[in-house]
């Protein structure tokens, strides 16, 4: 199976380790991974800030770059939700504005074959034990878009539970937003920071070493707050845990 890795602009620029972990993990599971160099950004930040018309060319570009692959895998719940939930909506809006079906038809092919990483592992590859080893206590934060837009359910937790050496601790108030919300973090800094601090305090109360999530944007916010509050906890993307093995541990 030949799949395209859609890494997202944030991961590409700031979190290349996550990308390397996804490649390592999928390759270990026998998947032929490609990284189309033309990829940039799904347009989510534009769309969610109210610049739908700026997001449209980015969505078209995404479809051009990824349209031919069998499957598109992304280690980001929110960018996955952008493609799956909001691309169809963009197509509908264009139609409602009397611009015809062109956008909808351009975007349609990528929508059903875009998968968030944990979804791809469990639903497409049919695995929950990916042969990982990670000797740490971990608590899992289900990000809002993964939880509510994509409906990832317990897939990430099932994957984590199967990791050797890993002890999973329940996170109190797990389904509450961490307060990132893209531009929300900048436009409403006080509320965003208060939400982040509460999330970090809840994470701390578990006594885990690591807070894990399937989205680096949320982890950037939570991790940035942890750094400021001197918790000693680390934010880690789930891909890096799942890629970790006894032979090649990721710290």
């Amino acid at each position, binding site marked *: 199976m030949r799949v395209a890795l859609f890494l997202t602009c944030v991961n590409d620029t700031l979190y290349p380790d996550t990308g390397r972990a996804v490649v390592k993990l999928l390759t270990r599971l026998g998947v032929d991974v490609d990284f189309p160099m033309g990829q940039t950004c799904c347009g989510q930040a534009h769309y969610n*800030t109210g610049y739908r018309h700026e997001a449209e060319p980015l969505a078209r570009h995404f479809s051009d770059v990824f349209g031919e692959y069998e499957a598109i895998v992304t280690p980001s719940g929110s960018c996955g939700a952008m493609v799956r939930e909001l691309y169809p909506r963009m197509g509908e809006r264009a139609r409602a504005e009397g611009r015809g079906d062109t956008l909808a038809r351009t975007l349609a092919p990528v929508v059903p074959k875009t998968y968030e990483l944990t979804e791809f592992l469990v639903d497409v590859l049919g695995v929950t034990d990916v042969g990982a080893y990670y000797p740490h206590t971990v608590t899992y934060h289900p990000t809002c878009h993964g939880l509510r837009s994509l409906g990832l359910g317990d897939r990430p937790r099932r994957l984590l539970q199967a990791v050797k050496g890993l002890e999973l601790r329940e996170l109190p108030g797990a389904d509450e937003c961490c307060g990132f919300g893209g531009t929300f973090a900048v436009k*409403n*800094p006080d509320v965003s920071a208060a939400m982040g601090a509460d999330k970090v305090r809840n994470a701390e109360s578990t006594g885990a070493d690591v807070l894990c999530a399937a989205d680096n944007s949320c982890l950037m916010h939570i991790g940035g707050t942890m750094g400021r509050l001197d918790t000693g906890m680390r934010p880690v993307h789930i891909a890096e845990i799942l890629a970790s093995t006894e032979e090649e541990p990721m710290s």
Partner: protein
Amino acid sequence: MSGTFVGMPVFPPPAHAAFPPPAHAAFLPPAHAAFLPPAHPAFPKAAHEAVHNTTLRGNLRHATHTIRAKRAKAVAEVSDWAALREAGKQIKDHTLRHLDGYLVRLEEAVTAAGGTVHWAADADEANRIVTELVKATGETEVVKVKSMATQEIGLNEALEAEGIHAYETDLAELIVQLGKDRPSHILVPAIHRNRGEIRDIFAREMSEWGRPAPEGLTDTPAELAEAARLHLREKFLRAKVGVSGANFMVAETGTLVVVESEGNGRMCLTLPETLISVVGIEKIVPTWQDLEVLLQTLPRSSTAERMNPYTSMWTGTTDEDGPQTFHLVLLDNGRTDTLADEVGRQALRCIRCSACLNVCPVYERAGGHAYGSVYPGPIGAILSPQLRGTASEIDASLPYASSLCGACYEVCPVAIDIPEVLVHLRERVAEGGRVTKDGNKVVLKPAKGHAAERAAMRAARWAFSHPGALRTGQRLASRTRRFQPRTLPGPGKAWSASRDLPSLPAEPFRDWWQRTHGGDRR
């Protein structure tokens, strides 16, 4: 909130005619002008205060988390919740699609039952109608059933300006009114107050308005409730005019419906000689059968009860029973304009259960007052900028008062996709576009203050449309990362004020990929 309730007053005390009129002169400070203080600060600024108010944060956290857990339990009891939710959505959508027809049918039914229907295009007109109606009775006092519509139009203030005192009789509204405060929650307007604060307000203010609070009043719920009960009882028994809203209006029979927990509303609906109900036009449902669905979902979503304790229904007038004069004021006030917007119109499905407020992490921290409207929380963030337009600072900031986490959509019993409407309204603020105002199509310009953001978005779009440019930028950032600041200028400053910045990696992923995999295989 605590389990406080006022309950039915003991009925009737023998001599009640001699209660003195209230001693206060103008009883509502201008700050109470509930719906549209145009100078209300933008959401982030108002929220800043609330976030740092520890009492408020504690009160809100306690109240919302308690009701949140209860709601989840009450909803889980119903095996067909998803179907009820879908049915509620369909009923409301159908009604909104044929709103004109159903309103005419309602008018006919109300008139046939002995009531009088008035149509009010906006707040001023509605206030004028109600004021005239009260004046015609010769009364200078009215008792009020808790109502969002009358707060939306600022009815109490309008009546006061004409020398008519309006008394709120809902316990929480009473607390807000006595405290010269503003409501901060749809269902529990005094949610931001704790029992100690309520005790102080009662002890200090009640004597100004009627029967004083008992000596040595403590903050136990039973004592607070008793004090309110006695205070309100004299109001109920003296009042000749009652003013209410309604949760629903049934088109087929012209019946209005109020659901409540305390029974005070029922007192106001049945005791006065004249009843005036001010109701938003979207509150209509075609038939009694439709009520069956919404009367199941509303109480579970709002108070986590299987059924609300009091459901009062009134249809026109009946000889020798209840009010002998009944007026219905049908309020538009921006609703038909909202109806014209195909994405935003779903906000009119709202049945004001307040479930979205109770789960909203932003509401929990910012408090209801930050929304600058009688409709706070997620529903307020999409309703107010539609009813009032996006011209003021507060209304332009409301669509951004959300992290788009989606918790509100998940709990909404009529499935309003609040995040979808928020993003839609952000577009209106950021890019402008066509809207309907006073029935006319107008083209809005983007709101002020978004020029820099728009330029940044365009630049980012350009870079993302040119992978080569993006790559150059990434490399440049990686090479200069030693010199990167720990705090950011401009809008980024808000980020680095409370969060560390991620450190830039030595090499972006795409460079690593090309180095190890030889570039694009396509």
